[in-house]
């Protein structure tokens, strides 16, 4: 197993690792950086539990070889809150009943986060499409949709403010 140096931005900070570039981004963030908020539900791009932002876009981190992130920015669920200061999406998820077991939640929030950044005033069908790569077995998605719609104006305000 040959290792390579990979330099990238992780949650706004410079990061550097020496690693087998075939390893998945999912494993890199969990095992190398201890960021266990990103979950693994299938390891094959079929559930979305591992969703993170790569260059601002939602991707399945289980399908990204570490070699690919060289020079890129990566953002995980851990970047959305600082202590008690939590993101409007996280607050809305908690308050709207959008979380049951919570295993899909980090990935779901990251998909919603990427989506709302480019669609500050979304319609319900757009929200449903935006989270269609994130499986949730618990909630039936209804309260998730409501939470994302509720968070949109808050997030828009925050971005402008």
């Amino acid at each position, binding site marked *: 197993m040959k290792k390579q140096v990979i330099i990238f931005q992780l949650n706004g900070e410079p990061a550097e690792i020496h690693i087998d570039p075939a390893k998945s981004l999912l494993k890199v963030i*969990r095992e190398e950086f201890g*960021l*266990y*908020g*990103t*979950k*693994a*539900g*299938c*390891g*094959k791009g*079929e*559930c979305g*539990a591992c969703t993170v932002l790569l260059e601002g876009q939602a991707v399945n981190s289980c399908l990204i070889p570490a070699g690919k992130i060289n020079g890129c920015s990566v953002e*995980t*669920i*851990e970047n*959305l*809150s600082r202590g008690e200061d*939590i993101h409007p999406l*996280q*607050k809305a*998820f*908690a*308050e*709207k*009943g959008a*979380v*049951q*077991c*919570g*295993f*899909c*939640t*980090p990935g779901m*929030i990251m998909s919603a986060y990427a989506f709302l950044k480019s669609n500050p005033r979304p319609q319900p069908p757009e929200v*449903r*499409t935006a*989270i*269609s*790569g*994130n*499986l*949730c*077995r*618990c*909630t*039936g*998605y*209804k*309260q*998730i*949709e409501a939470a994302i719609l509720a968070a949109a104006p808050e997030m828009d305000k925050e971005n402008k403010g």
Partner: protein
Amino acid sequence: MKTDTGTVKVPIGEEKDFQSAEIWARVTGKAVYGSDFSLPGMLYGKILRSPYPHALVKNIDISGAESLPGVRAVLTGAGLQCKKYGIAVDDELPLALEKVRYIGDEVAAVAAVDPETAERALEAISVGYENLPAVYDPDKALEEGAPQLHEDFPGNTAWQRDLRRGNPDAAFKEADLVVENKFTIPAVHPAYLEPISCVAVYDPYNGLILHTALQSPDSVRAIVARVLEMPLSRVRVIGPAMGGGFGGRVYGNLKLYIISSLLAVKTGRPVKLELTREEEFTVGRPMVSASIKMRMALRRDGKILAREADIITDNGAYSAQAPWVSKTLSERNDSVYRLPAVRTRLRLVYTNKVPTAQYRAYGNQAANFATESLMDMAAGELGIDPLELRLRNCTREGDTTVHGLQIESCALSSCLQEAAKEIGWGSKKEGRGYGLSAAIHANGSLVFDKNFRGSSALARLELDGRVTIFTGEQDYGQGTHAAFALIAARALDLDPQLITVQSGDTLSSPYSTGALAMRQTTIGGRAVQLAARDLREKITRLAAELSGQQVALEKDILAGTSGVPRDFAAVAYYYHTLTSGLNLTGEGKFVPGPADYDESGYGNISLTYSFAAHAAEVEIDRATGALTVHRLVAAHDSGRIVNYRSACGQVYGGVTQGIGMSCYEGYLFDGGRVANPSFADYRIPTSLDVPEIVPLFIETEDPAGPYGSKGIGEIVMVPVLGAIANAVADAAGARVTDLPLTAEKIYEALAGWECAD
């Protein structure tokens, strides 16, 4: 009786937005799930599985694996001295001894310093197999001369039941109409999003600790202790956060817990075993598939006279809870309507396929699909409106049903009427199909574990005046802890934010049979209520003793004159000093009387019963058979609703699972091999596949549950199947009796094709 049936009520007001403390960890990604859990010095386990559906294990050579650097233990069945174990019947061994019975059967296990080394160790094990003829079709497995799976179960029958109530023969003779059909329901997987994992830790001084999230940690603990022949107190189960359960984590994957324990004992190091998603589907246990031949006898006026069913459930290679699921499947649904007579024959059959277990609603949904389909067929034949036919027959308050269930609160008829009204039964849209379905589900089964029908809880007053509830009832997102906090808050007159609910460690939690059979709110909630009341009494008594005068409890302030402790904290501290360190603790024991039932299972087997009626509106593309479910109305009698938002969450989630089972999900087999072991091919609904769902709560005041409440978690998915099947039949003018209702099957029915080629 204090019921006020028939009103859609606003739920208990101010608590409706209450969320338990776990939520914050979950939204920030800080919650630690089993798959996130690790310990210093931990080894990684892997399991070698049989590639054959049925074979003799002639020899296993582990020398190559043992000599690999980094490998710490290699186990085979021959090296163990374990007795057979099981849940309903004892038919499993931790590792195969002489024979493997399905593709995936556990043959050997290794523990190594990292997953890659463990994987290489598996490759270094060589196993000599001698193939045996295999059998996959349960009908064939019952035939004379079929390959036999287990010596102890001749004829491949794992469990059977022949049941008769009343006089079905006379009823069928007397009937004006007999409707019948055969219904098939494939194996379905709970498909919780987090695959099961376990970290086992052992040392000879402290015993065994399993870090794994379970719906019923106490039951698993008992089995693991039995298999490893350890004293019960030497086995402890600690639950990290659980990524979904739906019945699949009541016993979870027992093999995984036992094998990781054996590896931990052998190595003296923590060992982690984890299933992949593919293994979840191929060795993690789906619910039994069923084929149901059902007949129903009716009078011209729509009165049901009798129902007969011949059921075969496919057990796969081992039993787990399949006998219990089969039992529920064979009887529960009969109590939806007033049936004077019933005959049921059920065979649970071993085949060389993935072993089965249970899923939310325990097979009741499979029977619902069959019965409710027949109801609509009968309505059609008799020229009676399907709603009317159901109303004429449905179970009502005060009934004793055909199996002896005593119905003390029941709003089923209102559920039917409200669901029909909301879906637009009277003003159906052109080109759409409409379907109705009704259901009953027990909550708080008294027969699950005869010795533990109830639940207990402790309410401990902390020194700062907060209260901690200790319960054995698990929360994995279904809202149990929030509901308990609300129940305790009410009993204590305390802000629910000041109450912490603690469970998930068998060392500190009271024993519980677990999060199953919708017993949590009803039975567990009563125990919490009693514990909180006990604490409240103790607080008032102590405050009075301390001050020498009468005190009253108002919110969390103890009112009285001078000298009275100001609040809970003062009482807590007073008791603490008085006892040199104890916390004032309330105890709650809720022990329902023994269920009164006979050998045939006749009797009142549960504390109380929830009811529901669902109505579906669908559309079919006649050119392709493509099905669109537009709306699903879910009317529920779950007594008083404790937490409106999480009750809605249960409805949305459960209905969605019902839609999955109706339209998309089901195991496909290629011989003995699972052909669709992935989320790509075992299709659970995505956000784009869920219709509008309308929850309606018809609140009754149940005498048994805490504050009149009943369970909701399982019944939510039951009526979906019948409602959608009936709506599809209404839209298509032809009926599909084989789940899931794929476009292909619907088109075949529309086009009158004989069967798929």
